[in-house]
């Protein structure tokens, strides 16, 4: 599995309120949520984002509320992977549970700039920055997470499991 796209770059502590403001939580419709993704931190994001694009951010990405609407809105926007130095724990769990690819890499978070063309190989965890000609390594998923993702999300995994 691979991802390849153009980077949208953000800083530390991107919270779930700016990813999807609560004023839009009166719906669970994925397309409506995607239309307002990142609205309070980057007004142009929803109109600019293209399928396969990549979000790169600093530490503690997705902090704050437990709203699964946040990773849903990012995934529905077409984003192929979020790379951050670290993720807030509920966002980390939610992303895995709904099948949004995420990777932790301090090196990538520091070196990648907005607009860079980046390729990610999920099987090796390598992140290739074609614009800068650099390669970074991300922490691979632990096996149990690979299992959840392999089965297409948490509910499919428990359905198929026991």
């Amino acid at each position: 599995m691979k991802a390849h796209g153009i980077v949208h770059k953000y800083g530390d502590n991107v919270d779930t309120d700016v990813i999807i403001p609560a004023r839009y939580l009166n719906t669970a419709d994925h397309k409506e949520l995607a239309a307002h993704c990142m609205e309070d931190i980057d007004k142009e994001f929803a109109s600019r984002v293209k399928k396969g694009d990549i979000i790169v951010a600093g530490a503690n990405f997705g902090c704050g509320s437990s709203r699964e609407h946040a990773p849903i809105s990012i995934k529905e926007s077409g984003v192929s992977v979020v790379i951050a130095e670290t993720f807030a724990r509920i966002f980390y769990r939610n992303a895995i549970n709904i099948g949004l690819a995420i990777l932790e890499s301090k090196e990538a978070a520091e070196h990648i700039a907005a607009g860079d063309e980046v390729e990610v190989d999920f099987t090796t965890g390598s992140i290739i920055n074609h614009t800068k000609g650099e390669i970074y390594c991300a922490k691979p998923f632990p096996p149990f997470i690979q299992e959840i993702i392999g089965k297409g999300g948490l509910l499919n995994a428990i359905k198929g499991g026991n």
Partner: protein
Amino acid sequence: MPMTMTQKILAAHAGVETVSPGDLIRVKLDMVLGNDITSPVAINEFEKAGFTEVFDKTRISMVMDHFVPNKDIKAAQQAKQCRCFAGCHGIVNYFDAGDMGIEHALLPEKGLVGPGDVVIGADSHTCTYGALGAFSTGVGSTDMAAGMATGEAWFKVPSAIRFNLTGTLPAGCSGKDVILTIIGKIGVDGALYQSMEFGGEGMHTLSMDDRLCMANMAIEAGAKNGIFEVDEKTLAYCKEHGFANPRVYTADADAEYTEVITINLSEIVPTVACPHLPENTKPAAELSAVKIDQCVIGSCTNGRISDMETAAKIFAGRHVAPGVRCIIIPATQAIYKECAKRGWIEIFIDAGCVVSTPTCGPCLGGYMGILAEDEVAVATTNRNFVGRMGHVTSKVYLSSPETAAVSAIKGYIADPREDTA
């Protein structure tokens, strides 16, 4: 292998003797919680996966508190979907307008959560119940759906930071000032993936409402859970609220912590978190240049009876400053009723405050107190992110009820210890 409190509760619920940080375990759940925003997503997932039955209709709580009483048609549809699901599956602990309260004030009050429990909730402030000695943590809607279906959840066993509390709180300060001070010290990711375990002699001097407020904000330091040692006050609280089966776990004396931090409660001062992160803390005394447009006293952090009492004592015979809107939201119907009985609602209204039925409304910028462009609020809520309470240029300062009430009267952020009225 010595264990922390959290590790002991998790081991017991996983059916194993011991666990170590980093272990992946599957645990049995005592309670699964959702609200009117997160439950619809969980219900969709539950049904899409083909589940037809919940694991235990007495161990699921659904609380319509965020946008209820319904703020608009879409919110009404979401609440209706929850109501239908709860009716169809016979969910015993379903709370709608009329008997609902803000979930994290309501569940402890109803005796639905208590010492030794493992609780997951599709709301990040589910960590509140750690005040009662439970392992309790926020999750997303898919985890809620899986929990409703199987009664189980997977966890990575966390390491812990130990907070040794000493001394006693000075006048004008409460649990909110303590937790804001701690978040200011360790940062919004200072306890990322970890437990925050609170103990020490100073802990026993804190009221249950103070502990609930502090555990509530563990998530604002990135923690998986916050947990307090169980003492006589905890057990008395359980008895009063009808929680029948407290299971008391104590950390081993030689349990390992990634860090041990001592907090002397006697040194706490009224503390405010400035925009736009809960870690941007300053003493209230240094913020008198900040004029406010709105004050909110309520939320799952500070909408409990002692918070209302604090506000009532300050507002008695006084009035909010001209140009300031003050919104007071008792967190549950029982608290609301008690405020009426004790004459506090009259005090609030005479002081020029709005008093509302329970709702999370303004805290998350839902409704009932949205801020306009560039407006400033002081609030007893838990988050001050960009746009949290309204317009993207509005600002929220987080404080205790003492600081918020005095600030509403002054019209600017004020140190409650300097309130001379």
